[in-house]
């Protein structure tokens, strides 16, 4: 089903948007939003938001963190969606941004999850919690500001096991600082889990000529705790 959704999104975007990196920026009209289209890869793989520890946990989150085990209960082991911001920071596989005026779609090769950023609406009321949440976006100058809420609490914030609640709120400021470089400044707020906002910057490099490939996590996964 996920693959079907991704293929559908790619087909729609291909017909509506100039999605190739070669068209990026050079073809942007004055006053028009920048073109973020292209295949991007994290410049430096940093799976942990706090590699040396020191996350500002609330007691609730600290207890949950102590129960995490990278070898037994990482949702990623079971090929479950990574959620946000893990989707954006802790995946050493490329992502493609497909840009349309009313929607921006991010397809990640690794998780094979499509993230949709709606540019023409607000968050719906009474969101049903989901892995990727509900993302809306707006342009502030050359910066795409993405606001995401409506998460379930089944994902980790990073590859190190940082927990979160359904109150998770992620704001990302994404901008193309030069033709080959994309920067995402991420702010994570979750007052149930953290005593102050968490911030992180991810840098991505354009991978000209790359295409997103198939990645079937369930194919030969020897780590799934769900299978045990």
């Amino acid at each position, binding site marked *: 089903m996920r693959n079907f959704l991704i293929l559908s999104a790619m087909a729609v975007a291909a017909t509506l948007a100039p999605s190739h990196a070669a068209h990026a920026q050079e073809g942007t009209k004055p006053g028009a939003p920048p073109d973020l289209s292209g295949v991007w890869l994290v410049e430096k*793989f940093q*799976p942990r938001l706090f590699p040396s520890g020191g996350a500002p946990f609330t007691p609730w989150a600290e207890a949950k963190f102590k129960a995490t085990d*990278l*070898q037994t209960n*990482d949702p*990623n*082991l079971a*090929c479950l969606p990574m959620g946000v911001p893990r989707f954006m920071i802790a995946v*050493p*596989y490329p992502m493609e941004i497909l840009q349309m005026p009313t929607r921006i779609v991010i397809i990640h*090769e*690794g998780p094979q999850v499509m993230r949709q950023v709606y540019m023409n609406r607000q968050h719906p009321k009474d969101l049903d919690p989901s892995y990727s949440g509900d993302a809306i976006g707006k342009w502030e100058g050359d910066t795409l500001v993405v606001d995401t809420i409506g998460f379930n609490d089944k994902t980790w914030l990073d*590859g190190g096991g940082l927990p979160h609640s359904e109150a998770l709120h992620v704001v990302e400021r994404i901008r193309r600082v030069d033709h080959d470089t994309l920067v995402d400044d991420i702010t994570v707020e979750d007052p149930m889990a953290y005593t102050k906002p968490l911030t992180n910057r991810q840098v991505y490099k354009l991978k000209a000529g*790359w295409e997103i*490939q*198939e*990645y*079937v*996590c369930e*194919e*030969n*996964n*020897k*780590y799934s705790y769900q299978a045990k």
Partner: protein
Amino acid sequence: MRTPTRKGMLAFSATAILSLLSLAGSAYAHHGFVSWFDMSRSITVKGTVTSFDWTNPHSYIYFDVKDDKGAVQKWSAELGAVAMLARAGWRKDTLKPGDEITLIGNPAKDAKPLMHLDKIVLANGQELATAL
């Protein structure tokens, strides 16, 4: 950087050489490989391919390693996903049973005959890394 133990060196002394190389890159594994493998140590293992899984989320090389007495130990090496390996020059037929190979990577923390692969040297001397 952690110093390899003498005990570990003796375990496969004929064919596996522990070194103190500090490793960079090699990040293209899907699951939390840092929790299974000792990324601070590098080992070099010579063996004979028995099979090659060209699969997601990981590819695997299965190979036989002979110790200095001729006893065979069954090893496996974990690689990353197919697409990233292909971008690094790998193909599904890069390896076939019987190929003599040298593997460089990280040992399993639990001393099982399993490694996380960084680089391979094929019988013809060609080197292939698992990361770009």
